[in-house]
C-alpha cells in the first residue's frame, strides 16, 4: 500500500521519472480521455488534478466563480507551472466546465504566451447513447489517434491498440476486485484506502500500477472486516481523501461511490472490436453515467442500483459550491432513496479545501449516529418479503 499511497501523494513523481527516461507525458483533463490510445503510442497518461491547499484567489483573474472550486483549482495548476512537464494536454468533454476550460486555455495560450500551457487537444466525446453519437465518437477517436501518431512520429497499429486495451482492462479488472473487497460483503478496505489505490492508477504506468494493486489485493483479502456504518458517496468528484477520512473517522466506512475518482474510474469494459477504436470509445460513452453528462433519471437509477449493490446503509451527497449538475440530480435521488428507507445526507455548497471541518464533522457524525443497522436476519427477511411481493 505504501507505494500506491506514495504515488497518490506524490502525483508528479512517476511522470517526471518517465520524462527523465525520455518518454512523453500526456495530461488528461476529465475522465473521458481514452488512455488506451496514449498507452498504445508509448505515452504516459496522467490525470490532471487540483490542489485543495492552493490559493484559489490566484485563479480569479482568469476563471470565474461560476466554475466549481475543483475546476478552478486545476485550471490554476495548469497555468502556474505545476504541469510544465506535460508534453501535451488532452481535454475531454466530461463536463461543460471542462469544455469551457479548454476554450479558456486555448485563448490564453494566444493572449499570454508566457504562461506555461502545454500543447492542447480537445477530445469531443458525445454522451448520448445514440448511433449518431457513437459514429461521431469513432471518428473523433480516429482523429485523436492521428494526432498522437504525429506527436510520436510513428503509426499506431491495431496490435498496439489491442495490447493497450489489454493493459487497461487488466488494471480495471483489478480495480473492480478492489470494489469487491469494499462491498457488498464486509468491507476489508476503507474508502480512503480505495481512493488512493484507484487514484494511483491515474499517475503510475498502468502495468506498474496493476502489479502493485495485485499485491495489495492479496494482502487486503486477509484483512479483518472494518466496523462501521456502510455509506455510499455521490455528488462531486473527490480527487483527495480528506472528505472520506473525515467520514470514516466518524464511525463509518465508505463502501462505494459514483464519481470519477472512485469506482466509476474502472466501470465498463472495453471490448475488442473489429476496429479497436470502436471498443475503446464505446466504453467511455456507455459506462455508468457521470453526473455532468446524464439526465436526472439516469443518475437516480444508477445510484439506487449502486446503493443496493454495495448494501450501503446511507448515502452522502457531497457537492462543491457551483457544481450544478449533481445539485440538479439530488432532489430526485433523495426521493428515490428515502422511498426505500435509505437515509440521505446532503452536504451542499462545499469548499474544495476542507480545512475548517468542525461543522461538517458535526453533521456527518450526527448522520452516522442516526443510522441503526438492522440485524442481518431482519434484512434477509425483508428481502424475502419483497421478492414475494
Amino acid at each position, binding site marked *: 500500500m505504501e507505494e500506491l499511497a506514495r504515488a497518490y501523494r506524490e502525483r508528479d513523481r512517476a511522470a517526471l521519472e518517465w520524462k527523465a527516461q525520455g518518454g512523453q507525458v500526456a495530461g488528461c483533463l476529465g475522465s473521458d480521455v481514452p488512455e488506451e490510445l496514449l498507452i498504445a503510442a508509448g505515452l504516459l497518461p496522467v490525470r490532471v488534478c487540483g490542489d485543495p491547499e492552493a490559493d484559489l484567489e490566484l485563479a480569479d483573474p482568469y476563471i470565474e*466563480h461560476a*466554475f466549481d472550486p475543483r475546476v478552478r483549482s486545476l485550471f490554476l495548476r495548469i497555468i502556474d507551472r505545476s504541469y510544465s512537464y506535460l508534453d501535451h494536454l488532452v481535454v475531454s468533454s466530461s463536463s*461543460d*466546465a471542462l469544455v469551457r476550460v479548454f476554450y479558456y486555455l486555448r485563448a490564453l495560450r*494566444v493572449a499570454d504566451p508566457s504562461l506555461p500551457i502545454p500543447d492542447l487537444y480537445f477530445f469531443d466525446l458525445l454522451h448520448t447513447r445514440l448511433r449518431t453519437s457513437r459514429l461521431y465518437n469513432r471518428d473523433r477517436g480516429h482523429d485523436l489517434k492521428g494526432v498522437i501518431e504525429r506527436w510520436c512520429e510513428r503509426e499506431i497499429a491495431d496490435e498496439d491498440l489491442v495490447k493497450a486495451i489489454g493493459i487497461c482492462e487488466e488494471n480495471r479488472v483489478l480495480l473492480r476486485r478492489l470494489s469487491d473487497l469494499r462491498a457488498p460483503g464486509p468491507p476489508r478496505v476503507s474508502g480512503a484506502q480505495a481512493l488512493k489505490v484507484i487514484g494511483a492508477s491515474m499517475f503510475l504506468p498502468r502495468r506498474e500500477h496493476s502489479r502493485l494493486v495485485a499485491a495489495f489485493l492479496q494482502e487486503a483479502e486477509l484483512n479483518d472486516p472494518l466496523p462501521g456504518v456502510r455509506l455510499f458517496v455521490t455528488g462531486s468528484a473527490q480527487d483527495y481523501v480528506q472528505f472520506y477520512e473525515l467520514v470514516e473517522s466518524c464511525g463509518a466506512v465508505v463502501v462505494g461511490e459514483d464519481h470519477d475518482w472512485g469506482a466509476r474510474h474502472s466501470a465498463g469494459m472495453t471490448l475488442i472490436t473489429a476496429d479497436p477504436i470502436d471498443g475503446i470509445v464505446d466504453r467511455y460513452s456507455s459506462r455508468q453515467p457521470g453526473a455532468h453528462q446524464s439526465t436526472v433519471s439516469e443518475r437516480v437509477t444508477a445510484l439506487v442500483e449502486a446503493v443496493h449493490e454495495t448494501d450501503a446503509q446511507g448515502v452522502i451527497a457531497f457537492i462543491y459550491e457551483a457544481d*450544478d449538475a449533481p445539485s440538479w440530480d439530488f432532489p430526485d435521488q433523495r426521493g428515490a432513496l428515502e422511498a426505500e428507507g435509505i437515509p440521505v445526507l446532503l452536504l451542499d455548497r462545499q469548499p474544495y479545501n476542507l480545512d475548517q471541518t468542525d461543522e461538517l464533522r458535526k453533521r456527518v457524525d450526527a448522520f452516522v449516529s442516526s443510522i441503526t443497522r438492522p440485524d442481518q436476519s431482519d434484512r434477509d427477511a425483508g428481502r424475502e418479503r419483497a421478492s414475494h411481493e
Partner: protein
Amino acid sequence: MSEPTMPASGERDPEWSGRASVKRLRSAAEANSYQREWFARMRGRVSKGEPFAIVNADVPQEILRTMDIPYVVNQWWAAVCSAKQMSPYYLGLLNERGYRQDLCRYCSLSLASAFDPHPENGPWGGLPKPTLVVARLTCDAQAKIFELWSREFGIPFYALENTVPLEVPERWWEKTSWHWEQLFEPHRLDLMTEELEGLIRFLELRTGRTFSEDRLRRVMELINEQEEYNKRTRDLIAETVPAPLSVTDQIPSVMIPQWHRGTQWAVDAARAFYEEVCDLVRRGVGACQNERTRLMWLGTGLWFNLGFYQHFEERYGAVFVWSIYLALAADAYARYGGEPLRALASRFVGMEDMLHMPPWNTEWYLKEAKKHQIRGVVHLVSSSCTQAVQGSYFIRKTFEDAGIPVLELMADTVDARDWDDARMTAELEAFLETRLGVKP
C-alpha cells in the same frame, strides 16, 4: 390575474420592484401587441388539440416553423416571466422542491413556472401543457432541466448534441452568410444535419405533422430577408450620433420578430423597425438628445429591470446602444446557398462559440464596439451559470487593450431576488464618473 405570493425565502427588499422600460418605438409596441395576440391564438390552437413544443433558444426552431408546430422558447418565456416580476414566485416553487436557490435560473425559470398549481395565473394566462420538449446539450443542466420538464408532463424529450470546434476562424462574421461551409468543420455540420433529420422524423411521428423541403426553403428565405433588415438597422444605429434608440427599444423590436422568424410577419416587423429607425435618423431624434457617451451591454438582458438602462440616459447622457440581440441577428443568422437543412445546421452549430467562447466572442465584441463608437462596456457576469460567464478575463483584456474600460456587474439575468438596485446603480454611476469621466 391574482398576484403571486412571494416565497418566504426571498431575499430582496420587498419594497423594491423592477422597472419596466418606457417603450418609445411604434415597432416595439406593435411587436408586444402581436406577441400577446399570437400567444392567445396559440393557446386556442393547443386547446383544440394541436401540438405545442417548448424548445431551448439554441434549438433550430425553423424545423418546427416549417412543420407548423407552435412553440415557445425557454429563455423567451423566462424573460417574460421575469419582466412580469414573477421570477421570485416561480423560482421559489423550484426551491420548495429541493433545488438550491443559486442553480441555473435563466434556463430553469420556465420549468419552475410549470410547477405552479395555478398555471393560469402566469403571464398571458400561462403556458399550455406542452406536447414535447427539445433542447441542445450546450451545458450540463440542459439534459437535467428538460428531462425534468418531460417527466412533469409525461411527454417526450428530444436532445440534440453539442460539438466543439478544434479550429478557430478569423473574423467569423464575414463568413457566416455565404462561406459557412468553410467556417464550420464538416464533421460538426454532418452530425447536426443528421440530428436534425432525426428531429424531423421524431416530430413527424409524435405530432402527425409533415415536413416539406420546399417550405423549409421558404422559411430560410424569409429569415434571410428579415436579417438583412436587422443588419441595416444595426449599421444605422452604429453610425448615427446621437443613437436613434437604445437597447431598451431595440430588444423588443428585434427579439419578438426573432422568435417568430421564418414568417412574413417577422419580415414585415423587421422592415417596420428599420423604417422607423430611418425616420428617427432623418429627423435627428436620439434616444437621448444629450448623448455624451455610448455603452455596450454584454450578456443577456436584465429582464426583471429593463428600466435600469434608462436611468443612465436621463442622468448622464450615457446610452446603451448595443446588446447581443440586434447584433447577433445582423451578423450570425443569414445563410445563403447549399442545402437548406445543412444551412440551418450551420446557423446553430457555432452559436455557442460565437456568443460565449473566447476568442470567437471577444473578437466580435470588439469589432462591434468599434463600429458603434463605444466608450465603455458593462458586462453582466453570472455568478451561477457557466454557460453565461463567457470568458471575463478575455473580455476585459480585449477591451482594455483597445482602451475601452469594462465594468463587471455580478447578477442573475432573471432572478430579481439577488438584485441590489441601489448598489448596482452606484457601481455603474461610479464607473461612468471615474472611468469614463462622465458627470451627471
